[in-house]
């Protein structure tokens, strides 16, 4: 056990935790914005997979990270438009529509991959950018300030989301349509428009999350996300719809995963138990949901279509 506490191992675990947390954080922040507006999107995982495959394809074809990131983001936005049309315009049930999006993303990303790429080829990975000065700090420098740009972006989005939701007019509208769309409507706030935009933001973030995942790994394969998007949705509940809480959840999740891996590597967790340790995420999610279930109220109109007669 003592080996766990060597400085270099600790740094590696923290760095790994931050890296693992990145796609969760991006996706969960986006889902927070969507849910605040009253829209549950269970399709996050599918959107991430689509963005991942498009970003992967772009980086293989062009080697240009900006282009890859742009295409990943764009795929998210396009899926957002589709989801918004389904749920906001046609008022379809959100829970199962999201699952439809998930199944579509899962299937179509695989299809696109097979047809356009075929073999998993190594792609360039998003390079690490050391932040001047900060990255020279002992311990934290390597653990926190030596990551790729999308990781930094994810953490910068935390205060940005706080600001968007708490301080801007648009954020106020989002919260209003998520709590009482009828009231917002009666004051001339367009529920459809506000939710539409919130969905686009949420899906764009999911797109970035998929992009971050694939550009960190430098490879794509079918079902790359392994349910990551669903965990991200759970983290929104875990974080009680507050961006900082969501960040705490994502980091906790990443650090736990990194620690478990580290303990497995050291042999502290015996090999016989390693499979069971892999179930931890799903179990942790459910436990967190149970514990937190009654503490905070979800947006009152979450997952309810708004139809003005």
């Amino acid at each position: 056990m003592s080996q766990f506490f060597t400085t270099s191992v600790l740094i590696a675990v923290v760095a790994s935790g931050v890296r693992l947390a990145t796609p969760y954080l991006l996706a969960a922040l986006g889902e927070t914005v969507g849910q605040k507006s009253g829209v549950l999107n269970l399709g996050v995982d599918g959107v991430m997979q689509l963005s991942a495959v498009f970003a992967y394809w772009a980086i293989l074809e062009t080697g240009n990270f900006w282009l890859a990131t742009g295409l990943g983001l764009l795929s998210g936005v396009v899926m957002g438009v589709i989801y918004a049309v389904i749920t906001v315009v046609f008022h379809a049930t959100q829970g199962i529509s999201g699952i439809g999006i998930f199944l579509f993303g899962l299937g179509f990303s695989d299809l696109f991959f097979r047809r356009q790429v075929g073999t998993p080829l190594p792609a360039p990975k998003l390079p690490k950018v050391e932040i001047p000065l900060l990255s020279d700090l002992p311990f934290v420098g390597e653990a926190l300030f030596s990551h790729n740009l999308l990781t930094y972006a994810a953490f910068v989005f935390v205060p940005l989301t706080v600001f968007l939701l708490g301080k801007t007019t648009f954020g106020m509208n989002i919260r209003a349509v998520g709590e009482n769309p009828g009231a917002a409507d009666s004051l001339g706030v367009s529920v459809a428009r506000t939710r539409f935009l919130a969905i686009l933001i949420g899906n764009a973030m999911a797109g970035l999350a998929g992009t971050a995942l694939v550009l960190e790994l430098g490879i794509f394969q079918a079902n790359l996300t392994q349910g990551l998007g669903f965990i991200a949705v759970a983290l929104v509940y875990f974080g009680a719809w507050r961006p900082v809480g969501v960040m705490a959840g994502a980091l906790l999740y990443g650090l736990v995963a990194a620690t478990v891996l580290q303990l497995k590597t050291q042999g502290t967790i015996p090999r016989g138990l390693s499979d069971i340790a892999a179930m931890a995420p799903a179990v942790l999610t459910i436990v967190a949901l149970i514990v937190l279930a009654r503490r905070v109220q979800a947006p009152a109109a979450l997952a309810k279509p708004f139809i003005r007669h």
Partner: protein
Amino acid sequence: GSSSEGSDANTTEGGSDTTAAGSDTTTAPDTASGPLTMAIVAPSASNDLAFTQSMIESIDALGRDIDLAVTDGTFVVEEAAAAIRAYAEEGREVIIVHGTQFGGSLAEIAPEFPETTFIWGTATETQGLDNVFAYYPQADQGGYVEGVLAAAISASGNIGVVGPVEAGDAVAYINGFDKGATDNGATVSIVYTGSFSDVALAAETAQALIANGADVLTGSAQMVVGAVGVAVENSVPWFGTQANQSSLSAEFVVASQVYHWEVVLEEMLALRDAGTLGGEAFAINLENGGLVVEMNPDYPGAADLQATLDETIAGIIDGSIDTGA
């Protein structure tokens, strides 16, 4: 079964190439006149750098005149079953059923087409069907060889393994690798991530292994592509299995254990030519040349390792080395 045996008295319309039931329409006597008609039904893509690709390449390597039909990506059993039956009804002479999970469908279909040879794997037995051949790899052998090579190039003597779930084929390879490396003085850390497909987890596992001092890595199953990327990033040599993974990195992939199914396919087809349609299981191993440890010629130290490689292989073949299987 959705076939309609007994109803073949019904019309067979227009110039269709398929009759309603295939049991009495064998084309076996025609073999001499044209190419051997073969088909393969496989669960993953034919260019997956792994399971399915190895078989397709083996068929291509068969040096026979073959008319091959491919149905790949049939992960859903029901769909695979439909394809197998369709090929049988079409009168294909040899059908490769590439996936253990299709065994149930095969057991149902094979007896209906006694003139057709089915080749099924990976499996160590034929379910007692006499028109079925089975095949499987003795992956511990190549694992052992790669373990020896890994120990030879490791400076720290610390070697990492990224494993999926501790079960099935992957375990044979990893245990062989473990024994090969340990017999030669190295320490092996094996981490089973708990998933066959979580690329991100495999990548982080590689990171963790490296952080703990590993300077040579290997791994098995389809999620290792993530780990290879990390190995390359950290300039750590990598050993592959199931397919030649040097396409993932020309520089850091040292060697790959590759399956050459053509060796056993050759034997099976010869038996068929001689009138035996099935009933036997074949293993590929180092001795029969079905398992080959392919060195990556571009790996800087490749030449230095050749002697160790040859020696170990010889030892396994003559029985002086125990791979632990």
